[in-house]
């Protein structure tokens, strides 16, 4: 399966959409941590220099200052790499954001494998886990520009804490222009009846779709569910997937602990949906340098591994019979 590519990387699309929104809404301000040129938000700075604040290399202060700005009625969009937007400012996100019930949009770029050029230090494999442990944060993992275009206005307009995992340089086109997405509702990227692959983000949704193609060659019909809102999780979509396809495989660009796979497992267990279930992702290990394809292959996360895992789950389903 070959994907088209967009002319704009996701970071540039993100800036373009933010600039459009900021032209209409003077409350939107941007804070970055000496990464304006990496985040693509330099374009926002060019358009709105008086509403862009480069904090320097100080993520904790950036998150705290955003809490203060929010309390004054502004809508701060703050950026760092996902590793630092989570690990480096967890207490500030909690105390100055969540606990103070503020309105901050946290942009964490290049989660997981996306930052493998910088290696294990910069690969956020735990950012979703950190964020989903705190109440009232919506976690969003956009798949492509079309989705970002559809959901970013709602993220800005909805009061509250948001964490956006954005793969900066991805330009893969997964969805046709104009497709609408609803925050909190999973999107069926591909229909299927034998198993559901629940995936997130610009790296794993394409891999899941490639795997679904391969599975089709093998006579297995795989549904691909794009769970771009990781929290709050679309429980109904998970329940339907289990009931309608009888097997579930998650695919996330994150540690399999505390991320999408864990969230789905919680629903399956709580709903007594004892279907064959598996998780694709970093298996509680550290990251390393390498290209994205190398990382995905090495850590067992590419389309080939997803295909094998799905095949196995479908065979278990046949052996066990229906248990739901």
């Amino acid at each position, binding site marked *: 399966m070959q994907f088209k590519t967009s002319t704009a990387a996701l970071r540039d699309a993100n800036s373009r959409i933010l600039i459009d929104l900021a032209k209409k809404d003077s409350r939107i301000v941007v804070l970055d941590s000496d990464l304006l040129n990496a985040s693509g938000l330099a374009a926002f700075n060019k358009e709105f220099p008086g509403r862009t*604040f480069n904090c320097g290399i100080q993520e904790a*202060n950036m998150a705290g*200052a*955003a809490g*203060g700005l929010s309390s004054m009625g502004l809508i701060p969009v703050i950026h760092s790499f996902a590793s630092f937007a989570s690990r480096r400012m967890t207490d500030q996100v909690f105390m100055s954001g969540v*606990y*103070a019930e503020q309105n901050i949009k946290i942009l964490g770029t290049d989660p997981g494998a996306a930052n493998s050029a910088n290696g294990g230090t910069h690969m956020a494999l735990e950012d979703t886990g950190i964020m989903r442990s705190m109440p009232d944060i919506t976690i969003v993992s956009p798949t492509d520009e079309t989705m970002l275009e559809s959901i970013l206005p709602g993220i800005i307009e909805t009061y509250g804490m948001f964490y956006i995992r954005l793969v900066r340089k991805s330009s893969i086109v997964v969805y046709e222009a104009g497709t609408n997405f609803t925050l909190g509702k999973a999107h069926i990227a591909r229909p299927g009846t034998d198993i559901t692959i629940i995936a997130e983000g610009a790296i794993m949704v394409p891999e899941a779709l490639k795997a679904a193609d391969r599975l089709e060659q093998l006579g297995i019909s795989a549904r691909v569910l794009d769970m771009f809102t990781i929290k709050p999780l679309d429980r109904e979509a998970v329940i339907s997937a289990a009931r309608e396809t009888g097997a579930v495989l998650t695919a996330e660009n994150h540690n399999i602990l505390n991320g999408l796979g864990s969230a789905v497992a919680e629903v399956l267990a709580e709903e007594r949906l004892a279907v064959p279930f598996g998780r694709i992702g970093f298996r509680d290990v550290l990251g390393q340098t390498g290209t994205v394809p190398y990382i995905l292959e090495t850590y067992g996360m590419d389309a080939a591994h997803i295909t094998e895992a799905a095949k196995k789950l479908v065979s278990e389903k046949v052996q066990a019979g229906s248990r739901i």
Partner: protein
Amino acid sequence: MTIYEKKELDLLAAKIRLQSIISMASYGSGHAGGVLSLAEAMAVLYGKVMHYDSANPQMEDRDRLVLSKGHCGPVLYAVLALEGFFPLEMLKTLNANGGNLPSHSNMHKTPGVDISTGSLGQGSSLAAGIALGMRLRDIQRFTYLILGDGECDEGQVWEAALFAAQRGLGNLIGFVDWNHQQLDGYTDGICGLGDLERKFMDFGWDSRTIPGHDVEAVYDAVVSAQAVKDKPSMIILDTVKGKGWSLTEGKPNVHHITISPEQLTEAENEIGTVIRNLEKETAAARQGNL
């Protein structure tokens, strides 16, 4: 400042002390040391300096206060109650089940609390953000920040100091309650802070050190700081931990203490006497007899 004004603020400070102790005693314990060292600063801020409306705590055109040493909530609650934000009786619900006066201040529970604090260091960034927000929204008011001296161990204080200086936030006025002690002992013996006044100066702030229990000195310092338009200001309050109560003043290990009903009675007698004397002096000063 006239003698009458000074006496009036001294009186308010004594009332803040007593009401803080009553509040902490209702729960049985509290951060008495750092609460009592702040009484004069709170009296000057809420008694003379800050623009607010206790009947309309959310009034947009108001000064904001960030009590970054959030564990000293009781001193803020005492002055808010004395200034009419809520009834004095409510001070006896400190840390109560389901109550609205948590030991660390919460903007969504207590009328008059401008921002939630409790994790040390974060108030400095919140205050910088609020001051910047005031500028962006063209609100011509001041943001006041209160830090503890032990709190200055936190790196975030210095991140925020750089951030505020870089943006020339003249509407940000901070205080360090330099009471020389933190939870485990004297600040000099734990993580020596050196010359705080000089440090803030080097970080690009206007900075001065004053006797923190002298209401006139505190007021004059705030007026001077307000006149500094192109940079944030820091006022180092040289204070005594546990000030104004013989049980705690200048004593070691008074960061957090238990308070028995008997000790509350002693405080009511001791500080009650101070209050009655100050009331007489205030009345005399009003008539020009002091």
